[in-house]
């Protein structure tokens, strides 16, 4: 085997997953994409291969089948150098308010599944002594808002999970944990929403920031649209009696 490094992207059929795959392939990495929608993931894999000349493989993963996670990791061709979770499902907040199993699906997809999956890799990375874990969370997890609080609460949980994991890994060795909060990203997931242009970024931008933080500059918690850090800091500082009356 060559010394080419490998990245595994969980959520490889998504737009951010695609952009991230392309960025890593351009950096000379071997790329594995894991997704439930294999046809979409294969389409992304084909594209990255055609553009970069790097082979890209596709692996089946259903994030709602957590009992299969251990097997999924065991069946990987090898342990990757970097694992990135871009798993996410915005969901329909209104429906979640009246359909509790749907609300559970949003929370499992955004919090439980990526946390459980990354934790398995964390254990393996720790045993090996090296590895980088990237979790794409969301600014929606910084403070719960009426318009998307199931999604936001799950992302809050995921952000806290990553924080705790980073703490555990830094005490134990060389495994790095990176939290990425993209803010608004123009993707299929948000295609139906009106987004403020000054706070909206492209999947390419998210991908290059992920690559920068994970493989180049060593940052650990990043907001992709820098202004979002300021916006969320202000939102987090608002006193609750005021905050609860806002339509956000």
């Amino acid at each position, binding site marked *: 085997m060559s010394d080419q490094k490998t990245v595994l992207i969980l959520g490889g059929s998504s737009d951010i997953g695609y952009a991230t795959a392309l960025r890593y392939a351009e950096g000379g990495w071997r790329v594995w994409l894991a997704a439930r929608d294999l046809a*979409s993931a294969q389409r992304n894999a*084909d*594209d990255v291969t*055609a*553009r970069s*000349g790097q082979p890209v493989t596709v692996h089946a993963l259903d994030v709602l089948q957590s009992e299969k996670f251990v097997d999924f990791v065991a069946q990987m061709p090898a342990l990757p150098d970097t694992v990135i979770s871009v798993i996410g499902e915005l969901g329909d907040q209104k429906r979640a308010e009246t359909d509790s199993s749907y609300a559970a699906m949003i929370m499992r997809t955004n919090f439980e599944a990526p946390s459980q999956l990354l934790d398995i890799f964390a254990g393996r990375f720790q045993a090996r002594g090296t590895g980088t874990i990237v979790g794409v969370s969301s600014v929606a997890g910084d403070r719960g808002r009426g318009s998307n609080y199931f999604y936001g609460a799950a992302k809050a949980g995921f952000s806290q999970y990553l924080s705790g994991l980073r703490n555990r890994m830094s005490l134990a060795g060389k495994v790095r944990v990176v939290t990425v909060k993209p803010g608004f990203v123009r993707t*299929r997931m948000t*295609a139906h929403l009106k987004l403020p242009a000054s706070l909206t970024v492209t999947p390419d931008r998210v991908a290059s920031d992920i690559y920068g933080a994970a493989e180049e500059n060593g940052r650990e918690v990043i907001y992709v649209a820098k202004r979002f850090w300021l916006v969320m800091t202000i939102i987090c500082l608002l006193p609750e009696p005021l905050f609860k009356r806002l339509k956000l």
Partner: protein
Amino acid sequence: MSNLAGWGHYPIVATECLPERGPVDIAGLVSAHPSMIARGHGRAYGDAAIGQPFTLPTLGLNRLRSFDAATGLLRVEAGVSIAEVLATFVPRGYFLAVVPGTKFVTVGGAIAADVHGKNHHRDGGFADSVEAFRLVTPGAETVTCSRTVNKELFAATTGGMGLTGVIVEATLRLRAIETGWLKQQTHIAADLDAAIAALEATAASTYSVAWIDCLARGNALGRSLIYAAEHASAQEFELLSNGRTAFPPARSARLAPPLVAPSWLLNRASVGAFNALYFGRGVARAGAPELVHWDTYFFPLDAIGHWNRIYGRRGFVQHQCVIPLETARGVLAEILDRVARRGSVSFLAVLKQLGPSHGLMSFPMRGYTLAMDFPMTDTLLPFLDEIDALVADAGGRLYLAKDARQSRATFEAGYPGLAAFRELRCHTGADRHFASHLSARLGI
């Protein structure tokens, strides 16, 4: 319903835009929405990519699917732009076999309009570099078309302006290049005869095109600069490169008119000054060969984002005709003379030789094509009708990708493949499933 226009901002017409989706959803959208037309980057100048009543965006078809470096065969989804293909493959030593004057068109649009480039006289049109494509038919089936499989549908779809179905994927043959530079030779022509002679003399060059100063009159009528070029070989590049990189990346647009310009900006004096400067610069460079960046040679206008805005709120019309070889000299002189006498401010008049084409409705034929931009005014349309009469009498025709206003009579006289095309549309059900404002206007 919303209002939509082409690149010329004329006409602006109502259509229902469907959501942008990926390849798996196209067949469903086709069967649920009769009748429609596919639209990529909207670079057709007139009403060719505005659906009647539905417009189907194709920019979600945005993935490359495979590339074989040994054969140069590239399979892409139809919403991928020529800009994207070149940005990816020029650094790897490949170029598209045919590129039009802007790189911001999709592959699907380039096939549908069978676009031509500065090498049509040698290499044919875009469709001639297409090995095969996948088409969603009126029955919402996805079929492969090539010169051997579904060949009637292949011939009708190349140049068929999206009226046979929705192109979702295509396999293109790229050409290998040794560098990303063009070795350009500029020739000066004092008048139209000299311009035609220079285009004939440079016909052995891979690329050749003439830029005409439309304001020149009398003895100087047809005064031109002719740009002939070849892809520079590694050896030529070594000699001329001056330390530049062999495969330069794409250039980004540097300027963009911020908003729609006031209509008085373009007048005889301002365009005259521009043309004089441009001509002077060309004369200064004529003679010795020089290296030109691929982006600058093929896509000079793309360096100015939204250059269409300089024509103001009323927009503009590009008139592009082709005149058969035998009658070209006299008819071109007559057209240029009328344009010069009208004092029309056409910055961009381009003359080049075309060869034969193979699509049923493809624009090119053996002859000369002349393209001129005119700002929309109250007197423009009757003036263009007069020009059309000259074109039709000479056995020529107008380019549908540029058209916004020609009459049915002009159109029917120019396209001998029309009867067969209509019959195929009727036979496949495309006449009930695919329609644009252009097809409705021209009765295709």
